[in-house]
């Protein structure tokens, strides 16, 4: 099946009758994720509401609050790569754009070029987590001839900067001429989902940890990047918590912290190799949670949320990772350095140094998460296994 056919399939409501079957094959959280992804696609194609393209690190509550349908090209790129189309999309982009760009954006440009996504009415993006995302959305806005609103997030979190971002959100709302009467609801739903995510993170602190990287960096990550403020988001985290709470797994021997939120999305056996060696990815940098949003100050608290994640300065990243390593009782860390991703790879050595000081070894793997041509199975296997042998000897 080629990617154009797949894209067309996403437009039809086949998922609904299949949902019952899916629930039998997959567990409830997976079914919710699948339904959420495909139904939004369908609604976006039908233009049931204004379609807005946005980035993974946006305060999604804002867009759900404005009663729009947010589409997340970065997340969809991951999905296409998972389905085996990564290299194809990247190759398309490389015909016009520099091959050194991060492949998330190459895949995004490939999707635009092949017209695989519902067209945006407008685009809203924060400056997270890199220059690439800004340039990508600028290109998309030119291509689709629609407005692009950039929310520049300052490095430092302080009152003045939070007000700056808060005002920007309000200005965008005004410029779009949309009502935010769904905002209270989206904040409420986000907080509810957050409660469950918090409980999931508490379960992950325990040993055995009920979840491994194949899930936490899989559909869970996809929901993390797209569902805060939606009803399905709340249902997903609730279902996942209920699922994990009852799950019985073998105790892990090594507790791994995964650094940088990405890992290869195409077919690979990284998580399998780790689990075979009794190593479990118990926590990852992207599962970081912000403070609960304040329903009485929605714009200020959404703005504050945008300062909360680990990405930004190396200092901030190091501080957050150190706390994670301690809270989750980590034995070793793995940093996946995505080719062309300077903002994450740049701080890798500093993170390694910091972790070394607290007695935690770190492995850096280089690769490409989107483009399967960049995967070297034997080399990666040797590095992962050698790292586990290193932990064994400690």
């Amino acid at each position, binding site marked *: 099946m080629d990617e154009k056919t797949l894209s067309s399939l996403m437009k039809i409501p086949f998922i609904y009758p299949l949902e019952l079957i899916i629930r039998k094959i997959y567990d409830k959280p997976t079914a919710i994720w699948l339904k959420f992804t495909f139904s939004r696609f369908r609604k976006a194609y039908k233009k049931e509401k204004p379609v807005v393209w946005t980035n993974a690190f946006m305060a999604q509550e804002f867009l759900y609050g404005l009663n729009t349908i947010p589409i997340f090209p970065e997340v969809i790129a991951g999905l296409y790569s998972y389905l085996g189309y990564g290299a194809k999309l990247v190759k398309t982009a490389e015909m016009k754009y520099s091959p050194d760009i991060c492949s998330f954006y190459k895949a995004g440009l490939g999707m635009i070029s092949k017209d695989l996504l519902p067209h945006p009415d407008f685009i809203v993006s924060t400056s997270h987590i890199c220059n690439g995302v800004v340039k990508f959305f600028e290109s998309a806005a030119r291509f689709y001839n629609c407005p692009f609103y950039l929310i520049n997030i300052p490095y430092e979190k302080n009152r003045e900067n939070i007000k700056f971002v808060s005002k920007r959100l309000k200005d965008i709302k005004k410029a779009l001429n949309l009502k935010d009467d769904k905002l209270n609801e989206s904040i409420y739903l986000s907080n509810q989902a957050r409660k469950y995510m918090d409980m999931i993170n508490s379960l992950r602190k325990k040993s055995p940890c009920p979840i491994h990287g194949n899930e936490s960096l899989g559909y869970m990550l996809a929901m993390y990047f797209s569902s805060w403020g939606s009803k399905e988001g709340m249902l997903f985290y609730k279902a996942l918590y209920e699922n994990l709470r009852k799950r019985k797994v073998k105790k892990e021997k090594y507790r791994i912290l995964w650094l940088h939120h990405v890992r290869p999305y195409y077919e690979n056996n990284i998580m399998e190799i780790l689990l075979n060696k009794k190593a479990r990815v118990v926590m990852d940098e992207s599962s970081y949670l912000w403070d609960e949003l304040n329903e009485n100050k929605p714009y200020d608290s959404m703005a504050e949320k945008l300062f909360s994640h680990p990405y930004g300065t190396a200092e901030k990243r190091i501080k957050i990772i150190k706390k994670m390593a301690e809270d989750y009782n980590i034995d070793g860390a793995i940093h996946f350095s995505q080719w062309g991703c300077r903002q994450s790879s740049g701080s890798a050595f500093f993170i390694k140094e910091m972790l070394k000081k607290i007695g935690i*070894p770190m492995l850096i793997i280089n690769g490409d998460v989107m483009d399967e041509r960049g995967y070297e199975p034997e*080399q990666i296997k040797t590095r992962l296994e050698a790292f586990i*042998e290193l932990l064994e000897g400690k």
Partner: protein
Amino acid sequence: MITAGIDIGSLSTKAVITKNRKIIGYAIRRTGMKQEEILSEVFQEAANKANIDKKNIEKIVATGYGRFNVPFADKIYTEITCHAKGALYFFPKTRTIIDIGGQDSKVISLDDSGRLNDFVMNDRCAAGTGRFLEVMSEALDIKLSKFGDYFLKSKKNLRMSSVCTVFAESEVISLIAKKERKEDIIKALCMAISERIIALVGRIETRDEFLLSGGVAKNKGVVYALKEHIKVINIPHEPQITGALGAALLAYEI
């Protein structure tokens, strides 16, 4: 107790047999396409040299890229762990191992107790590996074993500008056309590979004593070039068997 270690690398397959933790025989063969055949031949050759019957081998450990293709292995370890173990046999004070193999190079650092502390491997590039030297040996029509002699006879410091093996080969050919001496070209090549290795060393914390292992350790030209950066480097009498030896020693711990 008698144990065996098998190291199936990209270019060569090695087998080492030990008795009570001492080497009693070993063999090295080019891996080639017929992995299974070579494996049994190497194993038999090592057993012959050790003057033992294979039946008497109690435990076998396999390592290298082909480690999963040794059906009779009792356990598998990566070459990182095996090289560390093997290095300590040859030079017990080793705390940094530089292994330059056929298709990859790695730097391994050990802690005070000789345990694995950190490691780094070259990424998607042949320039710091044995493959680079093989390509150049062919381009110059000079055997690798002669690189040391040529290095010492160099009178001019040429510099290779290419970082890529393929481009470097073109560069060598153009240097030959410009009538540069082979001695000077070989020295430049050895310095080039040495620089890539030193860059790899710089990526992790390393300290004395250094040990050089892998097939490229037999190339005296490269050794001379490395010694311009690291004054003292220990080299085992047979550096290629370090991995297989480590595997054989690890077999005692099964």
